[in-house]
């Protein structure tokens, strides 16, 4: 069966999702999309204020994509991903500080640790549904914050860890800030690539089935818990890599930064919600909308009073919650359907 035939089999306008595209077209489509996201880097590469913002945008786009794997596709709304982020950050920094292990390699142990720890701590929690699951995972974040403050020998306690500035490629420390921007871009591209491969695999379909109806999934021979655990491992490992990159970028990490809910744990969820949960492009769109806006508002209104930028940001999110229930990606999808209807009418 040729999938091109499938895609054109039904000429009716009631065909919002389309057929399953062949690999080459998907790869091309997303490659072009990712290249478009490089445009701001090229335009603003001389402005260090904006370059920093773009770097964070790429990083958080990748992190939101990672979160979306278990939360968006799998429907398990985790607010505990800050834990994986922190494990990645501490592991990479600690290995570099103590044993001079290159962060390029140091990213891996954190990712592997999270691929094991993530499923282990989520296992008991997966019995809970919806907001109860979210609250339980939020508790993990808070427990980990206390532990990180307490375990001084590992995390440096409340004072945190400082990575000295020793510029070298093998140290992942660069004098040219554009190098970090490219690094984060590659991270985002890899995360998006993993999402695409996942959603064209059995595990991806099973994740959607589990999200939609666990009983129906079981009846289709799907082991619900296994699917959730595998997706958690993947999502947590990617988040840990993002944490490691973050640590090498800012080179000062402390518990209050890593376990911050508005800046880390809840932010992943927020970006995906605004952009469109359970889609591949949604989390990236969310990051491109919110991170620059937030940074810009902070810079402009930061002087006029503490938290003014947060009030404005909150207002934007309120509008999104009211008028774009399925996020930006969902709104674009609706517009496309509307347009297709009008064209065929």
């Amino acid at each position: 069966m040729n999938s091109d035939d499938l895609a054109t089999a039904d000429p009716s306008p009631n065909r919002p999702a389309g057929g399953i595209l062949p690999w080459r077209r998907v790869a091309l489509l997303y490659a072009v999309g990712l290249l478009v996201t490089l445009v701001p880097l090229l335009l603003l590469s001389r402005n260090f204020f904006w370059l920093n913002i773009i770097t964070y945008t790429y990083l958080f786009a990748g992190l939101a994509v990672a979160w979306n794997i278990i939360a968006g596709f799998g429907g398990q709304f985790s607010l505990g991903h800050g834990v994986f982020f922190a494990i990645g950050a501490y592991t990479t920094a600690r290995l570099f500080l103590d044993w001079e292990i290159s962060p390029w390699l140091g990213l891996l142990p954190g990712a592997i640790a999270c691929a094991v720890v993530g499923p282990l701590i989520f296992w008991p929690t997966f019995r809970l549904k919806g907001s109860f699951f979210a609250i339980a995972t939020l508790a993990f974040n808070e427990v980990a914050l206390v532990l990180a403050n307490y375990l001084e020998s590992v995390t440096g306690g409340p004072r945190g860890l400082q990575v000295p500035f020793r510029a070298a490629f093998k140290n992942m420390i660069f004098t040219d800030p554009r190098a970090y921007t490219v690094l984060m871009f590659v991270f985002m591209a890899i995360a998006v690539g993993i999402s695409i491969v996942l959603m064209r695999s059995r595990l991806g379909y099973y994740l959607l089935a589990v999200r939609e109806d666990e009983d129906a999934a079981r009846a289709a021979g799907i082991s619900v818990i296994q699917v959730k655990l595998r997706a958690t491992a993947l999502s947590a490992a990617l988040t840990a890599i993002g944490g490691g990159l973050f640590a090498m970028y800012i080179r000062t990490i402390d518990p209050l930064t890593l376990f911050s809910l508005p800046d880390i744990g809840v932010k992943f969820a927020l970006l995906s919600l605004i952009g469109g949960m359970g889609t591949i492009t949604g989390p990236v769109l969310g990051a491109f909308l919110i991170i620059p806006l937030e940074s810009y508002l902070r810079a402009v209104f930061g002087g006029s009073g503490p938290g003014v930028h947060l009030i404005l940001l909150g207002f934007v999110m309120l509008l999104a919650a009211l008028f774009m229930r399925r996020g930006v990606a969902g709104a674009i999808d609706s517009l496309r359907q509307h347009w297709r209807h009008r064209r065929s009418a």
Partner: protein
Amino acid sequence: MSEPFLQVRGAVKRFGGLTAVNDVSFDVRRGEIVSIIGPNGAGKTTLFNLLTGQLKPTAGDVSLNGQVINALPPERRARLGLGRTFQIAKPLLTLTALENAMVGSFLHHSRLHDAEAKAHQMLIEVGLDRRAHVRAAQLTLSERRRLEVARALALEPSLMLLDEVMAGLNQSEVQDSIDLFRRLNGAGLTFLIIEHNLKVVRAFSERVIVIDRGAKIAEGTAEQILTNPEVVTAYLGRRRG
């Protein structure tokens, strides 16, 4: 071929003091179409859930192909060749019809395009191929029921358990479904159906098992059963005076 495929021996299910299924035994042989009928609250759905693995029996055994499956969860039973539908259809709403069927066909086809081809074939089988790329949320009730059947068929089961799959369908839709099931049965698929509609049971099944108040009260051909006074009493109540 004639040895029992599905075997239920002395199945009991109690919920506290309530005995929903009381010492029920029956066999289903390969290639048969067997119906379970009974008035509302007779314990049909509880019995059905003992077969699908949704519930575990308090006592007695359920075996498939000679293997006792009492303790197996639903997903393991599905992998052993047991397909099922739900009384209230459970479409995966945000997925298209094709993707719904693919969730089933991935069980035996791990590659995307193989799973897609198999799923598409199943949609053709149930007459939903023209709606392949429509989200399940936009399908009508009867389409959702057919989608449910397509997803179960995509598992390539050897035994299909259908729970009131005809409820809410109109005459011609019921006839289409009967034709579909007869065709699949001709291709070797075994059916165990729970059905309320006695006309369907008469038109369709080779053997009928009657459940009342948790116990099996009769078993036989559709004709025998529908003229059995005990069955008539169970359905219509006892004649007074």
